[in-house]
């Protein structure tokens, strides 16, 4: 099959080969921690701290993490933590979508004095380090009885997911020609029905992409649950670090296994909506 040459694409040259070698070196360097993690998760307890390379793969670490043995070592049930994380993140993304999609539509369509300032304020939630607000939040959560609850986590994760969803979807709505909804209005549909019938179906790729990103960010969030949850609703990020042992023995291979398990759900979600994702991530950036 013949292929068109891309702009700037050249035949092999020493410079191009040199650049490729450099990129390959960088690729190996940045990938190495992941390789190490996988190797570590497959090592037995005796092999993990050995100073020379010793490797007889075993899956026992994964079993330990998910079993009662793991719960005994860390005082946190890892399976429960997985469920808690799924519950929190799915809940947070859903709440953000229900509120954020209409907000993004309004932000994309309605230009008023100070509309950009409002958008900037929403984005600024992402600027502040989480540690900056964590102390007052801790006090407030204790007062309201939200400490160590799923509702509390879903609420606080809005700081992570909502700005992301609003900002990404706003550009999707802005890319839609307003004539589409205007046509629906003249067809006799109210503004709400025009939104639901015309605009919403057309930004589905954007919703998928932004929801996935929001899910990953929420899933990986560490500081909020570390401070705002106790032992009964610990999410998976905190549970993983428990294997490093707070003062007790550090189980490196168990930590590695737990981290890999913890990374699987976002990966599965991403794969399942990959079809939307590739189109979605580029659609917002490049105007067709």
């Amino acid at each position, binding site marked *: 099959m013949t292929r068109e040459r891309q702009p700037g694409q050249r035949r092999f040259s020493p410079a191009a080969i040199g650049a490729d070698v450099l990129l390959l070196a960088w690729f190996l360097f940045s990938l190495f921690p992941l390789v190490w993690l996988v190797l570590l998760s497959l090592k037995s307890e005796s092999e993990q701290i050995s100073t020379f390379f010793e490797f007889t793969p075993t899956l026992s670490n994964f079993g330990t993490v998910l079993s009662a043995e793991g719960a005994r070592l860390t005082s946190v049930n890892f399976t429960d933590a997985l469920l808690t994380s799924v519950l929190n993140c799915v809940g947070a993304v859903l709440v953000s979508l229900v509120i954020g999609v209409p907000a993004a539509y309004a932000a994309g369509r309605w230009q008023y004095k100070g509309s950009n300032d409002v958008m900037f304020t929403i984005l600024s939630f992402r600027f502040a380090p989480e540690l900056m607000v964590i102390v007052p939040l801790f006090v407030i959560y204790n007062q309201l009885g939200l400490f160590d609850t799923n509702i509390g986590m879903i609420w606080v994760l809005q700081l992570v997911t909502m700005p992301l969803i609003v900002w990404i979807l706003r550009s999707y709505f802005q890319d839609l*020609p307003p*004539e*589409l909804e*205007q*046509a*629906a*209005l*003249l*067809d*006799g*549909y*109210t*503004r709400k*029905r025009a939104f639901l019938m*015309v605009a919403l*179906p*057309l930004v589905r790729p954007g919703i998928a992409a932004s929801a996935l990103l929001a899910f990953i960010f929420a899933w990986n969030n560490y500081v909020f649950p570390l401070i705002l949850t106790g032992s009964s609703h610990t999410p998976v990020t905190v549970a993983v670090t428990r294997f490093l042992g707070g003062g007790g023995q550090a189980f490196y291979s168990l930590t590695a296994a737990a981290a890999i398990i913890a990374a699987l759900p976002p990966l599965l979600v991403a794969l399942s909506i990959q079809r939307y994702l590739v189109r979605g991530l580029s659609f917002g950036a490049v105007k067709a």
Partner: protein
Amino acid sequence: MGSLSVRGLTARYGKTVALHGIDLDVADGEFFVILGPSGAGKTTTLKSVAGLVDAVGGEVRIAGRDMTGVEPYERNVAMAFESYALYPQKTVEQNLASPLRSGRTGSWSVAEQSERIRQVTTTLGIEHLRGRFPRELSNGQRQRTALGRVLVRPADVYLLDEPLSHLDAKLRAAMRAELKQLGEMSRTTTLYVTHDYQEALALGDRVGVLREGRLVQVGTPQQVWHEPADTFVARMFGQPEMNLFSADLTADLAAVPEGGTAARSRRGGITVGVPASLAGSVAGSVEGGAAGRSVLLGIRPRDLEVLAGPEPSDRLVLRGRVTVGVPASLAGSVEGGAAGRSVLLGIRPRDLEVLAGPEPSDRLVLRGRVTLAERLGRLVELSVDVAGEAVIAVTDDQRVREGDPVSLAVPWQQVHIFAGGASFDTRNGAGTAAARLGAGAPVSRGMAAGEAGGVGKAPAVDASAASGGDR
């Protein structure tokens, strides 16, 4: 069905004013065309009527009902957007069904819907595309689908925004012919926006010419063609554009025997007689008579007729002058004489004809040399140098060659006179428009002078030239 009435309609985008007070009355069932160049405010006018534009001032009444504060979906208007605005996720059939399913255009059973859609798609020649998505259609097919989404439903007013602009030339001509015969169109008040003057003339019961947010002229196609309100309107209609010449009004007694006024183009190549009513209207605005006032003369290329084909003699070329006589009855009413006033002559290229045989005296005759002959099929577009003035004429005389001397003739009533100004640039009139003077163009009665009256006799030409030079 319903009338449409617009009073003092204004619209602005930020600091840009898009419409400066539009007044418009469209009768029940009338087909009204808004013609204007890009950026004139045509689409904004339609969207304002539809209620899709915020920051609108003035009043819109549809079927007698004041539309202030009425939502678009309650106005009972249908609009075809220039960008089609077809729902990308719906098929042609579903797009057309959309207005029928909204519940605001009457109640339609599923069977009635599909029957209605079948009728409309058949009329528009897209019945075989009903299952396709907009992305699978050509631009022409999309445009017809957008038109179908309008025609499929009853409405008080149809708003059509350049619905034929993306069709190829042949299909456009065919659709233009069909469009007006559609029952829906003839029954429904229609506001139709276009930048194609032929569409406007062919379709419109009346035509409104829009320029920079103002309606410059509203009238029947005949009115806007024959009596353009200003040079902007004159240039909008006709391809090639109307010839415009800067001219000065002079009391040219030799040229105009009965004491009338003449207008002589700046380069002296064209002299026309100006009806006194026109000269008077100029004089009325300036104390001390009209003398020295500048005007613009307009002659449509189509109105020019090539009088004599290729003529070997250089003599005619050298004497190529245009003189338009002023009817004495009109010129006589000018106080203190109108000499020295400037006028602008307008002659449409189509009004110029290529003639053979003896020169008639009831027409303005221009003599010059062909500098460019563009053969456009049956017609030839001529650029003729008339004593320094470039005149465009259209003829079907295929014998005319570049370099040939020719005589062009135009009936007197087809010479248009506009208020002139020293600053008016006849080559590039963008941004300026000169108003038409008086009610009519020069008429043959009382006309005199120059070559026009001279029937090719040298003395008449010389007299005209000499007297022009004296003043």
